[in-house]
């Protein structure tokens, strides 16, 4: 296949500039613009969540609770948890890369329900707005898990408002999930069967199933907490006949699958980065595709492993432990298949591939420490300690956000039509990996040493590990912050990217960069397998030197 990118998109063919007014952004039904709207929103929520994290790590440099009061500290980690989980990590990849790429990868003009897609952004912004209002008015101190009866009877602060925000934003997830499922079923290019789809699409499809099936359970649970706070209905409060463990069952029935809402899209991104970076077809396509579905199914069967010490029955605990061990199988399939994909490849150690390697390291380590937690007798010791904090940060932040960063760099030329500074890109990827490990590895040690999570004060013996952990934060800040700068600069000074700067396979690389409003000048067709590597006559990035209208950011 040769790169047919001699023609360049004109202004009217470029989705950034096809419509000029600010209003056209707020009324857009273009999936690519909705993805941009989501991305800008998520930068804001990430910044807000990071403030909470910074307060927590600054406070924990010393064992005494001396920087902020206990109440302020508890409100800081609650802010961090609620914002990062519900308003950053859950929508992160589906709403940005997923929104942008799913129709492009399938050869479709747009998602199946473009207006529903725009609605999902509005609903999300309203939900986030309610939560931010709750925080601005003073916040709350329940932790993001809202355990009853603490949240329903004893907690102060704007609990109801924050819960309402999470409840409303859940509809954004459901809308996105429905849209992706229907799009995948109905809008694939002629010739593209299920097993010719990119694995990113499989990942999004599996994610969407979880979003549509699990989110309503969270919604109902949160409504019950609000009703309990407002009317004392006694579903969760034992003083009036309720059951606190019922809340935990319902909450984790959503919130465990929610972790897979964060990681399944990341696994999909990874299959794209590994195949493009090694210029090779994925090893064992069907195994990798089905492992996404297997993880999605298993995600619904393991919620009880959050409750090994809660007082649920011994046999219940053992069954949940066994089911949790099963998740290791599809996860192992992914990691081993990526490694095998490198075999006989043509490997370029560029920025996206560095993020991919860093992802594999974090995902494998995070996943295997998950086995330690699934192991019920060890979990009794480390449950609710920093060991758990370290584990879920490796998966939810280390793995998922690193995959997002890799995907953002990989598709940046497609999204903006510009190339970024490769040296700064590699430097940031390495800083992120080192900073992440310095921040979170010491927390495994802290956890096994017995430091419970959500502690404002701790045993002075444990200070050294907390200091190390806090020392990783500035490195992390560089790793996350520097890309904002050089990616931003690339919009003005970056080289023109051409259609397919990585010589990658996939329909999204056959249209112009940035794509026109309806993605393809003519409806594309697909022949042959997924990932028909090798692509391109030469292995060098093909850079367009001619002048090209640069994308303008509006609104």
């Amino acid at each position, binding site marked *: 296949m040769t790169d047919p990118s001699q023609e360049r998109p004109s202004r009217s063919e470029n989705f950034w500039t096809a419509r000029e007014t600010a209003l056209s952004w707020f009324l857009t039904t273009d999936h690519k613009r909705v993805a941009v709207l989501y991305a800008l929103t998520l930068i804001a929520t990430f910044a807000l969540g990071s403030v909470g994290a910074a307060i927590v790590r600054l406070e924990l440099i010393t064992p005494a609770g001396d920087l902020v009061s*206990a109440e302020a500290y508890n409100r800081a980690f609650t802010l961090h948890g609620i914002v990062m989980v519900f308003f950053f990590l859950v929508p992160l990849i589906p709403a940005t890369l997923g929104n942008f790429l799913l129709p492009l990868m399938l050869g479709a003009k747009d998602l199946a329900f473009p207006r529903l897609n725009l609605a999902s952004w509005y609903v999300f912004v309203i939900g986030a707005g309610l939560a931010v209002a709750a925080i601005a008015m003073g916040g709350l101190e329940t932790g993001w898990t809202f355990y009853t*009866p603490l949240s329903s009877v004893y907690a102060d602060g704007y609990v109801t408002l924050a819960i309402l925000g999470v409840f409303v934003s859940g509809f954004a997830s459901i809308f996105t999930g429905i849209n992706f499922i229907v799009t995948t079923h109905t809008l694939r290019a002629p010739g593209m069967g299920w097993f010719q789809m990119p694995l990113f699409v499989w990942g999004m499809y599996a994610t969407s199933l979880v979003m549509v099936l699990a989110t309503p359970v969270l919604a109902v649970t949160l409504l019950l907490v609000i009703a309990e706070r407002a009317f004392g209905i006694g579903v969760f409060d034992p003083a009036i*006949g309720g059951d606190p463990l019922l809340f935990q069952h319902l909450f984790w029935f959503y919130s465990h699958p929610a972790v897979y809402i964060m990681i399944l899209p990341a696994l999909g991104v990874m299959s794209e980065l590994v195949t493009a970076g090694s210029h090779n077809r994925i090893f064992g396509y069907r195994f990798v595709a089905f492992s996404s579905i297997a993880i999605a199914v298993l995600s619904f069967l393991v919620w009880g492993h959050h409750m090994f010490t809660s007082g649920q029955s011994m046999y219940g605990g053992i069954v949940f432990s066994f089911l949790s061990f099963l998740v290791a199988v599809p996860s192992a399939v992914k990691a081993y298949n990526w490694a095998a994909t490198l075999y006989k490849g043509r490997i370029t150690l560029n920025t996206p591939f560095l993020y991919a390697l860093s992802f594999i390291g974090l995902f494998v*380590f995070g996943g295997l420490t998950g086995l330690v937690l699934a192991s019920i007798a060890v979990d*009794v010791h480390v449950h609710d*300690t920093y060991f758990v904090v370290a584990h879920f940060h490796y998966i939810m932040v280390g793995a998922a956000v690193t995959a997002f960063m890799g995907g953002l760099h990989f598709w940046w030329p497609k999204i903006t039509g510009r190339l970024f500074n490769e040296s700064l890109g590699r430097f940031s990827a390495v800083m992120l990996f080192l900073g992440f490990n310095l921040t979170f590895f010491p927390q495994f040690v802290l956890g096994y040493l017995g430091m419970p999570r959500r502690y404002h004060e701790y045993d002075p013996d444990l200070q050294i590990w907390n200091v190390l952990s806090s020392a990783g934060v500035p490195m992390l800040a560089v790793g996350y912050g520097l890309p904002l700068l050089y990616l931003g600069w690339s919009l003005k000074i970056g080289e023109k990217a051409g259609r397919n700067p990585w010589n990658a396979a996939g329909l999204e690389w056959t249209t112009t960069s940035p794509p026109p409003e309806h993605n393809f000048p003519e409806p594309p067709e697909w022949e042959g397998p997924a990932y028909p590597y090798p692509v391109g006559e030469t292995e060098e990035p093909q850079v367009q030197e001619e002048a090209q209208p640069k994308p303008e950011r509006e609104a």
Partner: protein
Amino acid sequence: MRADGAIPVWPEAISAHADSVDALAIGFFALIWTLALPIGFAIVWFGWRYRRLNEDVDRKQRHHGLTWLELSWMIVPFLLALVFFTWSALLFRDLHRPPADAREVYAIGLQWMWKFEHPGGQREINTLHVPAGEPVRVIMNSQDVIHSLYLPELRIKQDVVPGRTTSLWFRADDPGSYSLRCAEYCGVSHSRMVGELVVMAPAAFEAWLAGTEAGLPLARAGEALFRELGCSGCHGANAAVRAPGLADLYRRPVPLASGETVIADERYLTDSILMPESQVVAGYEPVMPSFQDVVTESELVALVAYIKSLSGREGERE
């Protein structure tokens, strides 16, 4: 750092169970390396050998899948994981099987302190004295939100849930003072809900018990309450209303009106006092009122201790 300047890397273990958990955790390190090293090795080796500029390698006959290889790296990790699952589940089962002769202590968690009561009526706050080498069973209730009693040097914790009775047991071997923490986030002063577990040589423990001012022994306090609250009017030997007898009830199976059978453990006894209509004994009318807002958590503990004392435990029988 510790006071002696050493950097702590591993917590003290003061029971056989803690040693077993440590062995399992160390086994996991071996498992993690076994499963992760092949991936790391393959990535580094392939990444170098098949780098873009290396034209000296054969890139023909690329594989796009090998079923036997796929199956091998599904089945081998699964079987290894299964070994660890079994190992761990057996340890967990022991944790739920307290010896019948375990010494009992009652604990109440509340925002933000731990209250402990020994059967002899000795009460402590945020400190728990126990004898070394003897099994101890802690029976726990919460007065408000969910707490979790965490004893890191014993590698155990158990949530303390309002509205239900939970318990844990241990046999601490090494005398000394160890940490006792709340592990379930319970509100503003969560991180201050800490205390100490004092493990004493048995003789020293007996001396401590004898030398500590004791309130009314729990069972006696419960007996007084039993009369005061009018329980004896129905459950007493010559009661006018027909209610199930309580003698020898503890740890016996109870047939329920629903057809099920439950063991009359602390949880059942507590539930029956607070929610008498939820588990009605077969052959009886559900006429007992709830004592939900009538008794405090400590009174509840005393009542349960009294009912247990009716079951022929040495020296406590009337």
